[in-house]
């Protein structure tokens, strides 16, 4: 029978004290950054603890390098040597395939109920998506570095100089970041990880193979060249290729018709693609997240 009295005595100070303790630290922007970092760390921990994810992330691209360098590569003629042509393509292919994991990860979070908890917390909501795509940038950076070392081991010798090589890698990573947002939208729209994979794969497969990633676009039939020469994966991979391999190699590739434009133009087109994809898919993904 003492409950009503207790409620008056106890709850007043409690409710009054609750809000300031949380509101005390930081502005909205610093919250957004902190929340994003906390979630990015959580997502990265998954990569270090789930062996299947590690295999998917590192072993698969290494197998592609070995496959194309030693199995198919001998019959693909490219000026400057195939391994130099191949490796920037591998960087592109790896991040395109890897983007699927953004969709799978988000779809699994949604199915598992943890996002339900996130939605009930006073966190900045968008950081669920930013933490996911941010973690994927970190993972992709690691993968590109490892692939660079693997490439060097199988004979990759770029002559673009360190700044241009770094710039080329940065362009690939920025493109990967943009793709993560496309895949975030996919992940938010489907029911589970398997469905995410089923939707992402048919998108990623033609973008990767009907491109300049592994072969010269100018050897494809005319009707395919129209698509392959201008689609974003080709544009970004050729930009990275031109930057990494250097002006001399780029000139050679252009002379035989493999490059249809200058490296500078590829770089500018890449930036345009990245900006356009981000401008469209970031708002779409955020809207879908707030809606679902």
């Amino acid at each position, binding site marked *: *029978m003492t*409950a*009503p*009295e*207790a*409620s*008056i005595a*106890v*709850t*007043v100070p*409690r*409710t009054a004290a*609750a*809000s300031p*303790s*949380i*509101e005390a*630290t*930081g502005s909205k922007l610093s*919250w957004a950054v*902190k*929340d994003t970092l*906390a*979630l990015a760390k*959580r997502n990265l*921990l*998954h990569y270090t*603890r*789930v062996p299947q994810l590690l295999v998917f992330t590192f072993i698969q691209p290494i197998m592609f390098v070995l496959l194309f360098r030693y199995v198919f590569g001998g019959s693909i003629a490219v000026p400057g040597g195939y391994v130099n042509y191949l490796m920037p393509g591998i960087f592109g292919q790896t991040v395109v395939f890897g983007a699927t994991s953004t969709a799978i990860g988000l779809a699994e979070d949604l199915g*598992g*109920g*943890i*996002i*339900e*908890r*996130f*939605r*009930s*917390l*006073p*966190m900045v909501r968008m950081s669920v998506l930013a933490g996911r795509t941010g973690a994927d940038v970190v993972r992709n950076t690691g993968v590109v570095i490892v692939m660079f070392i693997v490439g060097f081991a199988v004979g990759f010798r770029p002559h673009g100089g360190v700044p241009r090589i770094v710039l080329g890698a940065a362009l690939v990573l920025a493109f990967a970041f943009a793709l993560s947002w496309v895949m975030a939208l996919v992940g938010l729209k489907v029911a589970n990880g398997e469905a995410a994979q089923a939707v992402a794969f048919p998108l990623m497969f033609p973008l990767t193979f009907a491109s300049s990633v592994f072969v010269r676009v100018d050897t494809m039939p005319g009707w395919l060249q129209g698509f392959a020469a201008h689609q974003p994966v080709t544009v970004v991979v050729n930009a990275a290729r031109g930057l990494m391999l250097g002006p001399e190699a780029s000139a050679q590739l252009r002379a035989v018709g493999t490059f249809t434009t200058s490296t500078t133009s590829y770089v500018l087109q890449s930036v345009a693609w990245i900006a356009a994809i981000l401008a469209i898919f970031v708002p779409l993904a955020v809207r879908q997240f707030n809606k679902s």
Partner: protein
Amino acid sequence: MVVFNQYLTFLNDLATVDGMSQPPAIEVSGLTKRFGEVQALSGVDLAVEPGTVYGLLGPNGAGKTTTVRVLTTIIRPDAGIARVLGIDVTKDPQRVRQSIGLAGQYAAVDEVLTGRENLELVGQLTHQSRSVVTKRADELLERFGLSHAADRSLKTYSGGMRRRLDLAASLVHRPPVLFLDEPTTGLDPKSRNDLWDMIRELVADGTTLLLTTQYLEEADVLADRIAVIDRGTVIADGTAAELKAQMGATVLEISFVDARGADAALATIASVVPGAETDGAVVRAPVYDGAKTAMEVLRAIDAAGLDVGGLTVREPSLDDVFLTLTGHRAEEIDPRPDDSDVAPAAAPGGAQ
């Protein structure tokens, strides 16, 4: 009692004069929500006094989870008002989120992370300083008996441990209002009892708790007030004692060879227990003094020369509440696929 009530009124007036009058900690009126074809909520009203435990009792699909999801700002209602600590959940969800904790039947924790990492993640996402988070995580792991498993991945946790961690995660930022959505559904009796003890400890320090459950026993054990919810509306509301008074403290079940036997015996039994009803070959009667009435019923049956198959005296179940209140059994409708967790029988074992 009159004097006491006057005293209470006096206390409340005093609080109002001081500007300290507390609105209900949770206030819901006319709440509706539709998912496609299914009307999940059709006008839910409830009010939870600060510092009390409120049990929302109902079968799957009654609208319990939907109500909690609206109150925890996860979904927006179609119409109606929902306030937590006086703050409208649709107008200022971010402020509501600062004051609430949510733990549910799905154990919304990260399977790959360790127990400690899970709690620290929630601590960071509620914007507390690192030192506070570290201390709080240790404290909660200790309190929920998870210290020994703190640095193990959740993959190694049992179902009961996972629920405990989920509950701990909802408390990291010390929310004054807590929502527990079927906290013990699917747990074995031992884990359920452990969790009940923990919940009781937790509300002893003044937290307001809204608890949903399918188990009458759970609501009875934990809640100060209970609302029975069916098909998206609250159909009864009161203390456990009040609800039980409505449906009888215990239920007497007398089984016969067949439905005809039961029909024949109904009049005899109803002369002793007016609320008796037949259900197939069983006559069910709500009684207030179990053994004594049971003896009277048996004597009456014996005097009438009827054949009895069996006699059971048991605690009322959610089904009995529903039969009494609505005249129908607790039906299961699924507004959402993930609401379909089918739970084991609600009533504790009946005494023969």
